[in-house]
């Protein structure tokens, strides 16, 4: 079995590292504590623009924590402490002058379980736009645009102003949440196991959608489904016990992993 001490001695194994010029997000030596418990150890990694990066690893490895530190959602947890930097287009989002709420407006997030607001489909998508002060016909246009991009428009176009988001099926709800997240045109979209609560057909639809979305957005997706990571991502990060063990192009991670732990996880020997 792998111990934390053993892991911490290793440097992250990197294949074809992302050059700084292509990175939308640049995480530099990020460590994070919940109270006294350390959840992330000295993580450095770059997320390239307009690509899908998957984060994999056994449960409790810190992959959701890393994702949530990219848009400062961790700030909502009492007693959280962060060291290091997360540069977003060159700006450290943990700079004391940065308003965490403003950061979240630039970064969309989709959660494990679909979590639409108990409002109409329209109001769900309009929520972020309204927060930014978008009104009138522009609001309407952008809601429709987001629903189209989330591949939900055809299914809801005749009822989206009346029907509650909660009345949609699970897969539709998740696409609604994606529409809600991309309506404000965030350059970066974070997805936290977005298909873990969905059936295979709905999962397929979301995966297709992710591949389309990367044309316009940079996507970081946490998943414990390795096939999904292999199918949708360009690069993959493998984490274990809060340490970034290995990162590189997805085909390298899945076919020729360099680190023995990565190989053990990929081949299903632990996790």
């Amino acid at each position, binding site marked *: 079995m792998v111990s934390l001490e053993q892991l911490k001695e290793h440097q992250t194994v990197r294949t074809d590292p992302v050059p700084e010029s292509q990175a939308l997000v640049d995480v530099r030596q990020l460590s994070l504590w919940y109270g006294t418990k350390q959840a992330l150890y000295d993580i450095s990694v770059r997320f390239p623009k307009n690509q899908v990066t998957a984060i994999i690893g056994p449960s409790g490895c810190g992959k959701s924590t890393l994702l949530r530190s990219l*848009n400062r*959602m961790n700030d*909502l947890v*009492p007693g959280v402490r962060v060291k290091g930097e997360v540069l977003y287009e060159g700006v450290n989002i943990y700079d004391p002058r940065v308003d965490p*709420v*403003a*950061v*979240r*407006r*630039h*970064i*969309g*997030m989709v*959660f494990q*379980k*679909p*979590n*639409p*607001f*108990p*409002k109409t489909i329209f109001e769900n998508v309009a*929520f*972020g736009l309204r*927060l*930014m002060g978008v009104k009138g016909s522009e609001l309407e246009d952008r809601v429709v645009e987001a629903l189209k991009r989330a591949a939900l428009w055809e299914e809801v176009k005749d009822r989206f102003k009346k029907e*509650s988001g*909660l009345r949609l099926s*699970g897969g539709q*709800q998740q696409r609604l*949440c994606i529409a*809600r*997240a991309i309506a*404000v045109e965030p350059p970066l979209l974070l997805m936290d196991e977005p298909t873990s*609560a969905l059936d295979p057909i709905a999962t397929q639809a979301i995966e297709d959608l992710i591949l389309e979305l990367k044309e316009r957005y940079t996507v970081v997706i946490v998943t414990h489904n390795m096939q999904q990571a292999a199918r949708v991502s360009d690069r993959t990060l493998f984490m274990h016990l809060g340490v970034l063990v290995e990162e590189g192009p997805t085909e390298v991670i899945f076919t020729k992993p360099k680190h023995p732990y990565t190989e053990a996880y990929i081949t299903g020997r632990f996790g």
Partner: protein
Amino acid sequence: MEILKQRPSRHPVERLTLLVLLLLSSVTLLTTLGVILSLLGDVVQFFRRVPLAEFLFAPEWTPLFAEPRYGIAPLLAGTFLVTAIALFVAVPLGLALAVYVSEYLPSDKRARVLGVLELFGGIPTVVFGYFALLFVTPLLQKVIPGLSLFNPLSAGLVMGFAILPYVSNVAADAMQSVPRSIREAAYALGARPYEVALKVVLPAALSGVIAAIILAASRAIGETMIVAIAAGQRPTLTLDPRETIATMTSYIVQAATGDQPVGSTAYYALFAVGFTLFLLTLALNVLAQYIVERYRERYE
């Protein structure tokens, strides 16, 4: 677990146990029946003597006058007035408290603050009545000229605090049942805490919040001692909060503490008022339950 409630066996002791439990719980049903029947019998007596039209439309309630009139309107007006003033205090304060407790306090403090608020509900209402009559009224009289010693204003204001926990704690419960994931979604979209509370949580908990307000209204209508002490016992058809009035409950107290001979119209009038009160509060409670059941959001 539903499956653990197996059918009791045919063993006589088992059956006897069930029988005893059924008998005991039948008391609760008999109570309802008793309330309705005991009231109804005397209500029927009342309406044999007083036409329904007079009860509903006469503008005066003067059972003890030489020429008694039995119009419920003044009592209803008094009840409405006090209740409205109480809600005017309890609803904004209670909702603000609910938002604060549910959205701004960490969970360990939440239980403690709700417990303190419950203390308000635990204070006997005689105490609130005493406070209204001897502390609040003299204070208000300095500000508001023409305020009677007994007035619905101070009774209503103080009652607002007495029913505060019914608004705040029930509404906070409703807000707490809004799943965390929905709050997270709003935060992820860049909402600020106040926007999450007002634009997401409060609307999501709306049916529960409305039910809380209706329940509080029902409490205020049935509240007796505060009004009996501080609002007075003189039925007046007015909506002026400075004048002495009587509510349905305070009239019942007045009539019961004076000695009405059994069988007199005034005695039966007691039950006619009581029955009206019963129907009104029952209707509000049923309405609150209906709203909760009907509009409850089914979250995944």
